[in-house]
């Protein structure tokens, strides 16, 4: 069985060699994604991976599914358009913490609120890798970087707590170096109807090498954590930022399902009938 998954997972591997640095966490996320797609037996021709700009946003090129490598920060609205145009597709959005929470941060709460069936995986390295190491929205307070030579004056964003506040249908955190668990999170995120968010720790070996410290610091949510209890989810998210696991679930219909129901419930009309609504009925001349 495991071998079968491995063979299937290999089918999602494209001929393009990833451009990432040796040891980059994104390799781990990519491997977990291959495996998750294999476990779900996704059809590459019916799967779309949407990304923005950044190291991790090159992800779609390394997968044999359809991909959309768009502009910086706009993966989520792009993914919404894909899914609403064809709800039969499996749509996954990927990107970095800067792409998702700095330039693209304005779209996140709306993606959550709309609840279109998209799974969003952030490869969170707490830095801007592609532009060589400036701070990102998840960088730590006092973190030194080329753009914060005196230390970062800003506090990091708690993206898991933000996602719970935005009422995402599924909120989880994983790590590139915990491949089995991350695979399972991606599987569950795709299976959950609506907008799923996975914050995946993915260390940058070149500019913010947290690999070792993160491996030591991460730990799983306790088994008894109640995923459908929003207050408990908040408490867990605020308690410790190194906690991994499924924090929150909110089972509700996805917006694409609601759109379909709205379409089905609406009375069909022809274009000709719509034009009739503007028609001037023929009249006799009526000048006094």
């Amino acid at each position, binding site marked *: 069985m495991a071998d079968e998954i491995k063979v299937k997972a290999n089918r999602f591997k494209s001929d*393009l060699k990833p451009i990432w640095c040796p040891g980059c966490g994104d390799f781990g996320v990519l491997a977990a994604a291959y495996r998750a797609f294999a476990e779900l037996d996704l059809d*590459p*021709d*019916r*799967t*779309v991976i*949407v990304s923005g700009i950044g190291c991790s946003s*090159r992800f*779609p*090129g390394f997968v*044999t*599914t*359809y*991909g*959309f*490598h*768009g*502009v910086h920060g*706009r993966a*989520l*609205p*792009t*993914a*919404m*358009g*894909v*899914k*609403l*145009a*064809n709800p*039969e*597709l499996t749509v996954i959005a990927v990107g970095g913490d800067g792409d998702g929470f700095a330039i693209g941060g*304005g*779209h996140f709460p*709306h993606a959550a609120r709309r609840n279109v069936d998209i799974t969003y995986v952030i490869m969170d390295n707490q830095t801007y890798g592609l532009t060589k190491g400036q701070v990102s929205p998840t960088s730590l307070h006092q973190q030194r970087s080329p753009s914060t030579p005196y230390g970062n004056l800003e506090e990091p964003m708690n993206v898991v707590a933000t996602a719970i506040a935005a009422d995402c249908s599924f909120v989880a955190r994983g790590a590139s170096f915990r491949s089995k668990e991350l695979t399972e999170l991606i599987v569950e995120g795709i299976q959950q109807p609506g907008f799923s968010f996975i914050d995946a720790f993915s260390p940058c070996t070149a500019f913010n090498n947290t690999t070792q410290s993160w491996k030591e610091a991460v730990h799983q949510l306790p088994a008894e954590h109640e995923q459908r209890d929003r207050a408990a989810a908040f408490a867990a998210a605020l308690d410790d930022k190194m906690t991994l696991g499924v924090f929150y679930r909110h089972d509700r219909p996805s917006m694409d399902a609601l*759109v379909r129901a*709205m*379409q089905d419930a*609406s*009375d*069909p*009309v022809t*274009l000709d009938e*719509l*034009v009739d609504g*503007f*028609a*001037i*009925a*023929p*009249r*006799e*001349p*009526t*000048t*006094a």
Partner: protein
Amino acid sequence: MKRDDIAVRLAGESGEGVISGGDILATGAARAGYWALTFRTYPAEIKGGPCMYQVRVGAEQVFSQGNAVDLLVCFNQEAFDLHHHELAHDGHIVCDAESVRVTPQFESRSSEVPLAGLAQEAGGGRRGKNMVAVGLVCGLLGIDTARIEEMILKRYAHKGDVGEANIRSLLAGASFAREQLPAGGHKLRSAEPEHEERVLLSGNQAICLGALHSGLAYYAGYPITPASDILEWLAGRLPKFGGVAIQTEDEIAALASVLGASFAGSKAMTATSGPGLSLMSELVGLAGMAEIPAVIIDSQRSGPSTGMPTKTEQSDLNHALYGGHGEAPRVVMAPTSVEDCFQVIVEAFNAAERFQVPVIVLSDQSLSHRLETVRRPDFSAMDVVDRARPDAGQNGAYRRYELRPDGVSPMAVPGARGAYVSTGIEHDEAGNPHYEPELHEAMMAKRFRKLEPLARNGRITITGPERADVGLLGWGSTEGAVLEAAQICLDRGVKVSTCYPRTLAPLPVERIAEWASGMDRVVVPELNVTGQFARLVRSDVGLEVSSVRKASGLPFTARQIADYVTEGAPPVDRTGGIAEDAEVSVG
């Protein structure tokens, strides 16, 4: 003598029923067999502020809002103060007896009518004064009120006796006009019986209908004047066609989702105004680079920055043509009238699909919001084009960006075979990132080569003689006034030809040059400060032209253009009683 056409202006405070009165008058006149074209201005604020609604009614088709006001109805003093100077030399003012005092020189050309009083007597309360005003206009012009009565009954069918009260107000106004107002010269000539079916609608509505004919399935937009009603109209109708209209969090999300939907195989559109187009610039570049069909409506308003959101201008041309970094191919089109909106929007979708490019359609506030009587569109005559798809039986690896002689590469759609990555990064034929110099040159050439047929075949309308004293070359909604200006010029002994290309990028330079070769001189009228189209024509066609410009927030009148052509008088709009008479106020 009865008139061929009359321009009526209702003016008052926002909230006094000026707009609804104007709508009813325009619709009623259209139903009585006349051609109508409306023009309105209103404040950007939600409550209060002056607004006006002009209806030009003609026994034959009219193409612009009119040169001066033949009949001005003032609901209050401010309305008189703001508008009396635009009265035609033989025009007449009807004003509310309670609230308006006209200046002495207008006393002989005005009538005081107790608008609110008549409404109150009719039993509908003072709010019925707009219906009294509509009745007065019908009485003076000789328009039968029967059709308007039907409309009012229908409109207020569920509001108890409001409809009946409004009809009594309407009739009170009509009989007051017949019995107590000077007959004057405001009777309209009989309308010819209709030989063809007509519709009355706005430019934005025509754009929506044309988009539905084209197969629009996904719309996304962010509310912005004067484009919001496209979102609202489609939100109610698209689901009936199996599509959807989404209100996004900003214009960036709107165009991003449109590109996603189009990538996934839907025909997709967004509509905005200048500020929104600014936000979309980066994504227009992506659509050009990744070769994704999309239609972007820009209903231009007066800029820059917030500018005058409810006023018209043609100042986004440069942005549409050149906006964004790098050199991204795009098509820019401009409809010239409400009727033209049907066809241009279909052409826009066809160009987007055929060439896999973003198409920016430049409408403007005056065109978006004016009502116009037009011939019922014959959509069956407007072919719809779908993008080329890869051959299903094709063996071997699919190459999304295959270099072909015509530059167009078949586009696979998710759900069908041919998985590829659509990308804004420079790429090889397969879509994989590559930065080789030859490759970039070849791909840039491909992306622009695609559009060459459009420069050759894009639609142009040319009127008048092949050899003329003056050629009027323009774009967009100025065409109506220009067509009427050509007639005025001819009456003054100057032969004029007009030329309106619908496609501004790529510009049909050869055909414009050929047309211009028959003109003694070429004049380019446009509603902006810097003469954007004139500069384009000079640089791309190599043609020396005179640029006539106005950026007052108001459309050209035909006479303004004619006065420039025959006398060199620059177009000037004035408010606030600077001039006494529109007849002498120009120039």
